[in-house]
């Protein structure tokens, strides 16, 4: 096919996802190398959801051999796999899903790799830890990965319960995909826009000078700006500021209609509440501007911080305004008038971008770096999203467990029997049970019918030990919810239910995609799901 613009074979295959994260997101996925520790059902399902959209590579580390139990929960194994390497067999069946993805496996334990070859961890861009891994191993893994800024996902999946904990270090996001980036600059129009209002809408009350057709096709932005001029002249030069003034302004607009079915005026009236807001820099953007890293640039500063500093300077020079994104919503208008208005907004956005690009290149020169080191396209994306950026500073697992635990989050939820904090505590107790030095074979609580009662008591003890360690006071009634959660966890006997593993794989893969593409906003830092009530809760431990 020789039609210019027709999709390539790859664009056809990935069409439904490219509409979400575009070519930039796809490229980021294709250069990722994901490590999965233990080919559990949840781990394999996570990889499935990453292999399908085309991550670059994955590696599975696992020293288990395939058992019959694995076949009851893991779709990426079959009868012929029994007794063979679980890492190898899942790797093979996962690779079938997408010929463009490279899979490899290592028949070993993560403990051995941490001990003998920790350098190997540098090969991976994201690490997923699943299955029964003792606390000490998780903490050493976290200690190795966090300084590398390699995100670590710790995934637990027992019976109807799952949790996922991500240790992200600094994670700035520019493309957060807000519902709209429209800024009409109604309260601070720029000269080109003012000139167009005068030219097109200056006579909108004059039935002699304007035809009914013209009046009914005035773009609503121009109607609003013209009516604002009139309003300001009788209100100390101030725009409508509160709800009742905005309603008054709407009545003013209504009085300017020449007949009842002028859609453009209806559009203008509908735009008053959403678009009549004084300009301000949103909190997330302000937090970035106020961050130490924004002001203390160095050669090592990432592009994000350099562009953020440039936009901060731009804003200081422009009455606190951010660069104009330049988007214009559709509105009733003649084609040529709409396109002209659109071009005015776009031209202003381009001018703002040029100003920011200049500041960026000055900053780079000051830092002694090539002035064109940051591509203009990257600055442009940032300028379009300047009011919607987000900076996540996560916490390491060592922060949560050892250095600065957040006891407050637990204690405040403890008395609510419907809170999912009880499942969090139950899973922490499960981890403690697995980590017990005497439990060398890492047998799960409730693995045998005969141990259910004793194991239930052991998990309760692990919870109270954790609460004591965190200096959380509690009464026995407070632990009612926790006891039930423990009951569910022990009931499962350390086993995965395929549905919950599959759901876990979906949640974890979504989060990994958001982190790798640096698009949309990832969860920070713990999500718990309960498959009985079908609810999730997110905690920032």
């Amino acid at each position, binding site marked *: *096919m020789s*039609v210019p*613009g027709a*999709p390539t074979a790859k664009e*056809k*295959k990935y*069409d*439904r*996802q490219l*509409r*979400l994260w575009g070519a930039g997101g796809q490229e980021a996925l294709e250069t990722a190398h994901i490590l999965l520790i233990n080919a559990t059902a949840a781990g394999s*399902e996570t990889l499935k*959801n990453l292999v*399908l*959209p*085309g991550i670059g590579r994955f590696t599975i580390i696992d020293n288990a051999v395939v058992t*019959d*139990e694995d076949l*009851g929960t893991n*779709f990426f194994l*079959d*009868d012929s796999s029994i007794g063979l390497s679980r890492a190898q067999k899942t790797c093979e069946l996962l690779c079938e899903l*997408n010929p463009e993805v490279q899979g490899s496996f290592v028949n070993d334990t993560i403990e051995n790799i941490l001990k003998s070859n920790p350098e190997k961890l540098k090969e991976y861009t994201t690490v997923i830890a699943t299955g029964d891994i003792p606390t000490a191993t998780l903490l050493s893994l976290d200690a190795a990965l966090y300084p590398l800024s390699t995100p670590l996902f710790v995934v637990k999946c027992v*019976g*109807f319960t799952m949790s996922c904990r991500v240790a992200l270090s600094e994670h700035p996001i520019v493309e*957060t995909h807000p519902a709209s980036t429209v800024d009409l600059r109604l309260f601070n129009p720029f000269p080109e826009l003012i000139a167009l209002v005068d030219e097109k809408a200056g006579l909108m009350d004059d039935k002699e000078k304007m035809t009914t057709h013209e009046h009914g096709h005035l773009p609503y932005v121009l109607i609003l700006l013209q009516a604002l001029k009139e309003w300001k002249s009788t209100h100390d030069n101030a725009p409508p500021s509160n709800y009742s003034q905005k309603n008054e302004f709407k009545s003013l607009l209504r009085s300017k209609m020449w007949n009842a079915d002028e859609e453009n005026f209806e559009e203008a009236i509908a735009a008053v509440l959403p678009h009549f807001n004084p300009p301000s820099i949103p909190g997330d953007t302000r937090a970035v501007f106020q961050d130490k890293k924004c002001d203390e640039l160095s050669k090592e500063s990432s592009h994000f911080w350099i562009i953020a500093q440039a936009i901060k300077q731009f804003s200081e020079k422009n009455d606190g305004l951010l660069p104009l994104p330049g988007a214009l919503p*559709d509105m*009733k*208008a003649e*084609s*040529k008038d*709409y*396109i002209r208005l659109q071009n005015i907004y776009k031209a202003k956005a381009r001018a703002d971008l040029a100003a920011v690009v200049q500041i960026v290149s000055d900053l780079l020169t000051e830092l002694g770096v090539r002035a064109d080191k940051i591509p203009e396209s990257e600055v442009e994306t940032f300028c379009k999203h300047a009011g919607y950026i987000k900076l996540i500073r996560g916490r390491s697992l060592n922060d949560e467990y050892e250095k600065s635990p957040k006891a407050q989050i637990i204690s405040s939820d403890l008395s609510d029997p419907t809170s999912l904090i009880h499942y969090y505590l139950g899973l922490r107790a499960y981890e403690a049970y697995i980590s017990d030095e005497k439990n060398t074979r890492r047998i799960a609580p409730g693995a045998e*019918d005969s141990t259910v009662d004793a194991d239930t008591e052991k998990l309760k003890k692990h919870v109270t030990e954790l609460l004591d360690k965190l200096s959380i006071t509690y009464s026995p009634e407070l632990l009612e919810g926790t006891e039930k959660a423990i*009951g*569910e966890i022990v*009931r499962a006997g350390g*086993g995965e*239910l*395929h*549905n919950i593993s*599959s*759901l876990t*794989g*979906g*949640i974890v*893969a*979504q*989060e990994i*995609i958001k982190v790798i593409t640096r698009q*949309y*906003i990832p*969860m920070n830092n713990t*999500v718990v799901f309960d*498959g*009985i*009530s*079908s*609810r*999730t809760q997110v905690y920032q431990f």
Partner: protein
Amino acid sequence: MATTTVLTTESPDRWKYLNNILTRRGPYSDETFEPGDEPKAFLADLKILVIGAGGLGCEILKNLALSGFKDIHVIDMDTIDISNLNRQFLFREADVGKSKAEVAAAFVMKRVRGVKITPFNCAIQDKDDEYYKQFKIVVCGLDSVEARRWINATLVNLVGEETLIPLIDGGTEGFKGQARVILPTISCCYECTLDMLTPRAAVPLCTLASIPRQPAHCIEWASVIQWPKEKGDLKIDMDDPEHVTWLYTKALARAKEFNIPGVTYAMTQGVIKNIIPAIASTNAIVAASCCNEALKIATTASPYLDNYMMYTGDESVYTYTFQHEKKEDCPVCGNLPQDLTVDPESTLEQLMEKLQEKPETTLKKPSLRTSSKSLYLQAPKQLEEQTRPNLEKKLNELMEEGDELSISDPGMPFNLRFIISFSS
């Protein structure tokens, strides 16, 4: 087609983890739950129907097979397309063009020993009540509102002394999705919640015809106005690259004429096919939630969802789980007619156009009656011709305030009922 193979005895360890849940009572288990071998046997004998073998359907079949269901039917009339491969993981490039239901069923039967999956490469409307009656649960992974309304109404109509088939329905869009459990006539049904869908933002024809401003306006002009003009009765095939290319070229030329930037091939496809972004991970979440509910309902091992879970993943992780209210005036599961305010000066044709704007009153071939007369009937031809002049008439000539207006459609097994009031 795969044939049923003689099963060798399964190792008792295979289902050990599932059995833990079925042989042990949990703190939240219903009183009626009797742990032991019974729920297992029940699962194995229970007939379950999966509607759709696409993004959700592939996941659902895998999940049910690994949840102990052994007798599964699947219906899908679609064939495999290249753009399915980024998420419909039971299909490979070599399968493009084959029946989704058949390929999916064969794959899961090969991978999971002991499960029987019976595929049907047909429309759900091709099957009758007797067919649907044999199932204990229906799980739906569809992208069509129309098909969902049909199966929902069919299952509500089947409710009787012996029959109540729960409908578990999933849907996704991008990073978002929902799973829900419908107990026909007991909890809120699909039709009860149609007003949750966003109404279609229809672009006025005059915008397309004379004042386009957006790339989408140029694309719609090409498909709605220019195609019938130049191609006559030939129907557009959205999957035929020649047709899409034709529309793209026309749209591009029109955009150039009006200086409108942004028409692309991908956008052309997106607009004419109304493409909804879809990814493997979201399908996994929603399908798994649906199958988790199927397992809980089938075994009573734990309480099931009552009745709606929304999942949002584009900003952190957020779920909203709630009980959606049943609507007393639901045309499918309620008893009361809805209120409808109309302009007495408008024509019957205008009323019919207005009804198409809202999802809950959108029908393909609606026929309208009041209790005393037929206003407009789509078939048979003779009656259509007889009632056609009514389309031009004003509503106040055809009905009075307080009249009951009934709208039927050959594609829907129920009528919409309205009590009319006038207001200009």
